[in-house]
């Protein structure tokens, strides 16, 4: 996807590689002692099945085994920045809609978006199936005007005397477990989550604490519906092997040629519980010769990697979890928070976050958000525009390719696919999801 690694080491290496080009290209970056990242993390090396993306039955189990049991990222605290601020979120994978709100005590809460009277969708505008946001003192149902406090309690029933033994205390909104990490709001649809959020996120993500996400309040949000299984898009964003191929032409020829020869290598991969990260090497675009930059990058002093002039983060030192492999020069970290949340942290001091929300076994809604420290100057605004538009051009290329992949995977003609070491995280995702499903079936006594 937005392929930070695209340019990366290639420029540094293009001289030697032009000589060895088209011959066997050996790995240039060090690998773990086991010889590969894949073996280092104890994963298999055999070809894999993609049945998990083509089987409606697999998807049905995945909904319960994965999406009802994991912590799911649904928004940022800045979207509920005052008492009564709320947004709704359609959770098609679990067949529900939720409303997330900041209550009078400042606590962020989530509820199923259903009125306890006769089941009307409580919060919506114009189109029942579309998401909405706003600020209110209380929630009032559009149907018969039952009213709920921001903490979910039922406070008013129209013609209450007409009802029979109605205990208002027993008809509050149905809560959803909700917690916040670093300003990212998560919900969990289990009756009782198996782990609290912070424990679920684990040490690798916990080590990001202290990064100033809260300062990055300028947001650009991109949304698209993709006719492919959600995991196929996760894959496209957790391997950069495709970047110098699918996205090659986003680079000037002088850069594209060596990229084509070199392919891509990531300097660092880590797997921590269900979560994963890949880091890339960076380049200083402004140090490249003119013929290796796009003219518009020079004009805007920006590009896919973000503004050349990185804003000050206002922190003493980077949290230890950033650039966990100590890559130098460092480009970005792409953290994959299981199951469907990506958090990308760039060396140019901005952040991207993706969510992939399944709507069926072969479709999902993708939302990508670019988070910037707000532009103060026109030049900074333009730099963010450039990053946003470049991001979208990549996204368009990925989106259509995913549909093409889904289509042929569904043909069932082939079901054993070789996965390389640069795709180690794709393999990890398959194995991880299989594990969640096996664990769920075992607990439920299903065979």
């Amino acid at each position: 996807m937005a392929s930070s690694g695209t340019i990366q080491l290639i420029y540094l290496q293009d001289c030697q590689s032009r000589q060895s080009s088209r011959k066997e290209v050996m790995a240039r970056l060090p690998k773990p002692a086991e010889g590969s990242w894949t073996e280092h993390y104890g994963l298999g090396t055999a070809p894999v099945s993609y049945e998990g993306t083509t089987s409606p039955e697999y998807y049905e189990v995945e909904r319960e085994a994965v999406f009802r049991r994991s912590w799911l990222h649904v928004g940022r605290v800045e979207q509920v920045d005052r008492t009564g601020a709320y947004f709704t979120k359609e959770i098609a994978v679990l067949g529900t809609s939720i409303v997330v709100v900041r209550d009078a005590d400042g606590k962020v809460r989530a509820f199923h978006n259903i009125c306890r009277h006769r089941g009307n969708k409580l919060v919506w505008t114009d189109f029942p199936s579309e998401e909405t946001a706003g600020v209110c003192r209380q929630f009032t149902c559009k149907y018969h005007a039952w009213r709920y406090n921001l903490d979910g309690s039922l406070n008013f029933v129209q013609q209450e005397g007409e009802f029979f033994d109605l205990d208002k205390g027993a008809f509050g909104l149905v809560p959803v477990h909700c917690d916040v990490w670093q300003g990212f709001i998560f919900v969990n649809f289990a009756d009782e989550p198996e782990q609290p959020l912070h424990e679920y996120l684990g040490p690798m993500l916990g080590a990001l604490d202290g990064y100033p996400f809260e300062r990055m309040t300028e947001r650009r949000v991109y949304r698209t519906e993709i006719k492919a299984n959600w995991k196929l898009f996760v894959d496209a964003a957790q391997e950069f092997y495709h970047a110098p191929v699918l996205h090659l032409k986003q680079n000037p020829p002088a850069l594209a040629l060596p990229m084509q020869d070199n392919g891509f290598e990531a300097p660092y991969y880590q797997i921590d519980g269900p979560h994963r990260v890949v880091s890339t090497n960076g380049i200083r675009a402004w140090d490249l010769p003119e013929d290796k930059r796009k003219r518009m990058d020079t004009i805007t002093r920006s590009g896919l990697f973000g503004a050349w002039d990185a804003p000050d983060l206002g922190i003493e030192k980077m949290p230890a979890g950033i650039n966990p492999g100590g890559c130098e020069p460092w480009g970005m970290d792409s953290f994959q928070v299981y199951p469907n949340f990506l958090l990308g942290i760039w060396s140019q001091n901005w952040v991207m976050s993706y969510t992939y929300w399944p709507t069926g076994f072969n479709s999902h809604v993708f939302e990508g958000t670019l988070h910037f420290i707000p532009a103060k100057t026109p030049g900074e605004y333009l730099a963010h525009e450039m990053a946003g538009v470049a991001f979208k051009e990549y996204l368009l290329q990925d989106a259509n390719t995913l549909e093409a992949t889904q289509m042929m995977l569904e043909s069932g003609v082939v079901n054993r696919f070789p996965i390389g070491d640069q795709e180690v995280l794709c393999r990890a995702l398959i194995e991880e999801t299989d594990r969640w499903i096996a664990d769920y079936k075992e607990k439920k006594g299903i065979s």
Partner: protein
Amino acid sequence: MSLLPAEFADLEPFAAKWCVDTEDERFAVRMASSMEEIQAFYDAFEPRAETAVAHCDRYTLDDLPEDGANLLRLLCALVQASFPVECWRQVKVPDTGAAAVDCIVQPAL
């Protein structure tokens, strides 16, 4: 009525078409243009783009006058035009069929 600062008066014909408020609208203008139109806009504006950025950057975003804001809109439109010209040699991203991506939130300009 002129949209742009006086020193960019020669770009007025492009401003009438390309000075729109949002990234999605700029994308729509691009999609509705021919490659020749995009190339003509790029060729006219690209050599002066750095001067335009410098002009805008004499102000902060908050106190940017309306003609400066239009110049910034035109620069954002040049970003849209740059991809067909510098990367694709065609208006659309190659191989993107019916794929569509909406920019549903962006900072106001």
